[in-house]
């Protein structure tokens, strides 16, 4: 068995035993179900099935939850080992630092994928059962699950990076909270402010969509909305998504995990246990 898989297996034991997997799945199921039922009111007015509305609501939810869950799992991964004093021994073994990161990543992304699939899948099944389903809405649901996992991957990698830079688990937790706030809340607020100041000028027309899609959280939103007309309709967010070519959001969301991983690997290299 290769080394990164050995690390992944051990990490899976840890996630299972410290209840992370259970709690994350429970959170996903509860939130997704709540949004599905709360958001089912406008179905008739818009003329789309309940699953479509549900996917639109869950897209908004996932923008917040996927990065949060990913950071919760990853902030401790290097800083925690360093605090505990187990990092030196691990690094004395023949596994390279890239392999260690890859092993942890494999386990963490599998856990996130499990929580996302169960959570969104349950809500989707409930919505389909009560309010009808179409091929379009089913594809939208699958797209939501896959892109949520990708978004999680971005913040897992960024979490490792902070965990390596922070020097301690407490500092890493604080930095992760800051990172989440910047990417998910402050970035959009800043852009909104810029658009208001610009009053429909050059920035709003041509620069703004690109700056927006450079943020993985927004790229996730744009991808899900732009790809499905009915989801875009229910979310009321069509303008910005239409200003961009189709490939922009997927490229951003696919490149970010790689960038994050390279940054994390570089930061980990500098860690002296």
């Amino acid at each position, binding site marked *: *068995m290769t*080394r990164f898989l*050995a*690390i992944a*297996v*051990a990490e899976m*034991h*840890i996630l299972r*035993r*410290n209840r992370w997997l259970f709690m994350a799945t429970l959170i996903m199921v509860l939130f997704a179900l709540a949004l599905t039922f709360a958001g089912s009111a406008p179905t008739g007015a818009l003329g789309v099935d309940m699953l479509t509305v549900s996917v639109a609501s869950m897209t908004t939810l996932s923008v917040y939850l996927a990065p949060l869950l990913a950071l919760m799992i990853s902030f401790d991964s290097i800083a925690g*080992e360093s605090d*505990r*004093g*187990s990092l*030196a*021994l*691990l*690094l*004395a*073994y*023949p*596994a*390279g630092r890239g392999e260690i990161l890859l092993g942890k990543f494999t386990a963490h992304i599998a856990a996130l994928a499990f929580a996302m699939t169960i959570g969104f899948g349950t809500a989707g099944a409930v919505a389909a059962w009560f309010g009808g389903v179409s091929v379009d809405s089913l594809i939208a649901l699958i797209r939501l699950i896959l892109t949520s996992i990708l978004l999680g991957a971005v913040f897992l990698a960024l979490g490792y990076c902070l965990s390596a830079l922070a020097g301690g688990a407490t500092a890493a937790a604080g930095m992760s909270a800051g990172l989440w706030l910047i990417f998910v809340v402050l970035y959009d607020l800043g852009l909104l402010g810029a658009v208001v100041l610009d009053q429909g000028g050059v920035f709003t027309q041509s620069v703004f969509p690109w700056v927006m899609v450079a943020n993985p959280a927004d790229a996730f939103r744009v991808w899900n909305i732009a790809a499905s007309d009915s989801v875009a309709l229910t979310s009321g967010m069509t303008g910005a998504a239409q200003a961009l070519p189709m490939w922009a959001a997927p490229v951003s969301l696919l490149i970010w995990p790689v960038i994050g991983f390279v940054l994390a690997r570089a930061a980990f290299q500098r860690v*002296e*246990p």
Partner: protein
Amino acid sequence: MMDKALTISNVNKDRGKIRVLSDINLSLSPGERVALLGHNGAGKSTLIKSILGLTSFQSGEILIGAAKPGSARARAATTFLPEAVSFHPALTGREQLTLFARLAGEKADVAGLLDRVGLPEAMDRRIGTYSKGMRQRLGLAQVLLGKPEVALLDEPTSGLDPISRQDLYAIIDELAAQGTAVLIASHALTEVEARTDRIAILRKGAKVADDTLSNLADQAGLPIKLRIRAAENPDALAAQTGGTRINGASVELLCSPATKMQALRQVAALGDAVVDVDVTPPRLEDLYRHYSGEAVQ
């Protein structure tokens, strides 16, 4: 000539403006057990981390066999027991050791190893429930994975009860017998005394001694202590022998190895005035104080 398992030549390391390792030279042959002694902060752990490639040094060279520290070859040839070893509390002993075996690329008998270090009944319990001594035993079990060329043990006796220490030294002997060079950083001076082939002493990042225990004792010229107990008047006895009274009944005399018998004859000649005599050769602690630059008492 046999190749050295570990060669450290002229290693210097600065941390900020402080020189934490200064021109260190040390080599270990296969099967040799060497104690690395020094105060806290003398550079023992830093030297071990340098050998492991976990920290860089400014100049000099370290070779594990012929491999550079931190290279895949060097890491495969080295085992390490960190000071106050710790593991993820959510894993069981068996899972943790299985992980290490896979990382080392060994097809290990995990249950057998845990049995060997005295953890058979705890192997499927979470490490979070282990005592400090049990974690140390688990740390020892991972040292025994494979047939390492170099074993680096940082304070291996910390947290172990006396019986476990005996087990530890049996394990060290076993490692040495299979040809592993063992470097033991320790504070437990009296124990490494009989258990190592050679002793190296670090002081403020510099090596101040590196030899067998008997050679070090000869070079240091430390006195042998004779403690005699007086029948009734210790002050008179002290005056008579030229020694010093150390408590209500005893007098202590210092002599060199060459004059020991002469001193003993003198004591014997005192007859009934002396009830008892103890001869204490210089111990490692005295040597350690001598070489690490503290006043010998």
